[in-house]
């Protein structure tokens, strides 16, 4: 049992897990994730079965990945609990590190010990007298660097687990005037306006949604959000993530009778039962042009020369493709089809994730831990009447280099320099 615990909390497992998680993650960057079974079967006919069986189609939410992460957390917690008591003991003032066998002797008979001591004090070493010299110590906090880093990573993982279990997320489109209600939170969002910010060359600089937050028996609050500038309402955050054009399609009979008056977005279609006609809005082009290959496209998102690309089907058979301007009717038998009143709609994502605070806090802790580990590494200089030894774990070469220079500068005769 002890051997199992030792393995589960030991460095060998940590290394195995770090390498395995790295290797396993590569799969998800090479294989497209989250596609349908049919797509995998079509793209990888020979391997599709294996891809699906091994859950390589959703690597980062696969059972294997969860097991790896679980083991990683277990290993990290166990390892930290194992090393922390010893690290805390080393932080005490009377702790003296053991010099490495290969530690270089730097004593020089021409050294001025007082000058050397004073130089160390200037470098913020705390000096403790010994029987035949002194011990200069610095950065005791560095002893707990690795544990603080581990703690940070654990907090990040806890935050991401909280997020995975409890986070709420959704997406919705709104046209100006539309309202999206959030009954569980006691408010609703109404889109007052959505528009582009244009540059001089006509390209879109930013997407803006102006909204009102509606609450019963409270005055409306207006707010504006754009990409990189989310809006927070209570515990929900709203993000500007998408947009599109909606166009009104009006289908009338030659007699003037209105058959249909609805909004269609690009890629949507509507069906007229009477003549089994499908009206498919292939695209809307606010600043229309046509490529040399005959493909319609829009030069900019400015409403300068709007056109619609429309395809008609009857009984499932293609009966015509049209490029029309707003209000220009498409005649089909007894029916007239016109597109007009194109307007922008916004696409907003909302999200609530308490785990994020943990992730930010964990990141800060981890960064602090790394700073302790790399730049506040514990250092000790042991000086006796005929010896100077440096003691540090992380960077003995650097400390030796630094103290050598200090010894050099503290030689008798250097005082006047």
């Amino acid at each position: 049992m002890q051997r199992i615990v030792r393995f589960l909390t030991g460095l060998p497992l940590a290394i195995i897990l770090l390498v395995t998680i790295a290797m396993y993650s590569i799969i998800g960057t090479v294989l497209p994730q989250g596609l349908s079974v049919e797509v995998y079967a079509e793209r990888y006919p020979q391997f599709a079965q294996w891809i699906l069986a091994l859950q390589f189609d959703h690597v980062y939410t696969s059972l294997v990945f969860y097991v790896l992460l679980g083991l990683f957390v277990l290993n990290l917690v166990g390892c930290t609990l194992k090393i922390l008591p010893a690290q805390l003991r080393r932080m005490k003032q009377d702790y003296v590190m053991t010099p490495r066998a290969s530690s270089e002797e730097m004593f020089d008979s021409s050294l001025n010990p007082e000058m050397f001591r004073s130089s160390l004090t200037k470098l913020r070493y705390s000096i403790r007298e010994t029987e035949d010299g002194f011990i200069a110590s610095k950065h005791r906090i560095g002893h707990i660097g690795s544990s603080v880093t581990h703690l940070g990573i654990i907090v990040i993982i806890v935050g991401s687990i909280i997020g995975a279990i409890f986070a709420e997320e959704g997406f919705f489109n709104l046209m100006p005037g539309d309202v999206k209600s959030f009954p569980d939170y006691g408010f609703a969002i109404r889109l007052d306006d959505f528009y582009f910010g244009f540059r001089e060359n006509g390209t879109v600089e930013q997407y803006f949604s102006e909204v009102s937050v509606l609450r019963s028996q409270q005055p409306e609050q207006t707010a504006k959000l754009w990409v990189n500038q989310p809006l927070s309402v209570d515990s929900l955050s709203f993000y500007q993530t998408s947009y599109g054009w909606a166009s009104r399609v009006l289908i009338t009979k030659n007699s003037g009778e209105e058959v249909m008056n609805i909004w269609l977005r690009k890629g949507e279609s509507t069906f007229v039962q009477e003549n089994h006609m499908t009206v498919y809005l292939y695209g809307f082009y606010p600043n229309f042009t046509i490529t040399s290959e005959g493909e319609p496209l829009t030069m900019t998102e400015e409403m300068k020369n709007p056109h619609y690309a429309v395809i008609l089907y009857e009984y499932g058979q293609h009966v015509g493709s049209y490029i029309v301007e707003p209000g220009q009717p498409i005649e089909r038998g007894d029916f007239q089809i016109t597109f007009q009143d194109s307007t922008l709609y916004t696409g907003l994502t909302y999200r609530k994730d308490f785990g994020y605070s943990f992730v930010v806090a964990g990141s800060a802790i981890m960064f602090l831990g790394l700073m302790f580990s790399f730049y506040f590494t514990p250092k000790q200089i042991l000086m006796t009447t005929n010896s100077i030894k440096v003691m540090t774990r992380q960077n003995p070469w650097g400390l030796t280099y630094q103290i050598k220079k200090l010894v050099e500068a503290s030689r008798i005769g250097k005082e006047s320099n």
Partner: protein
Amino acid sequence: MEQIIFWEETFFTVAFVAYTAAALAFFAHVALKKDIMGKIAVLLTSAGFLIHTTAIVLRVIESGRLPFSNQFEFATSFTWGIVLCYLVLHYAYRFTAVGAFVMPIAFLVMGYASMLPKTIKPLMPALQSNWLYLHVGTAVISYGAFAVSAGLATMYLIHLYQKKDNETKTGMLTAETCDYLSYRVIAFGYLMLTLVIITGAIWAKAAWSRYWAWDPKETWSLITWLIYSVYLHLRFHRGWTGKPAAWFAVIGFLCVIFTFVGVNTLLAGLHSYL
């Protein structure tokens, strides 16, 4: 404006020439063991760095922002980061010969940059954030540090191959010095990479609602971070110094290069505009 573009391209080209000449001079310094060649190489590197900085400043004036928004801009900034890290190391320790192993990397990345389109495009909405500067700025420094560490590791491996372990007057380092310096530079790069990932996550949360989306670029940054984590653990706790550590430093840098070039060219994702 056109004049600024002309001068930016001119300064960029002159810097590239200076870096190329510096790399050759460093080789000559190491091969011929001539101190004077080392001094010339450092001078060329320093001058090239100043000229390169001027080119970048001119681009900042042209575009009104830091050059962090496409593959060319990151490549030129990456080269700048490599040379900066090398010069800091050089002026701190005066180990001239390190340049012979670092400047060829700077030359290659600058060469890659020179082949990319240099047009300045306005920032797309998702990039219009101050996090861009912190996120990509730390990446420039981090990648630069990893390049220098890979150079030092290569130097160590060559030491091993030549079975030489004495510091010479021409500034060749002992194998132990290469090893320790490589580690220290990796530690710095790792700290910066951690900041790259953290700032990227905070920015992603503000821009896309999620702090982590397993986008290939962020996943490869994580993979690089994990590889260097293994390096640091093995070094601290298993005494992995010397040859295996040097090979690890080289492998880590290959991950960095893949994250920079491979992910953009081979894999699609949220960072595909870079």
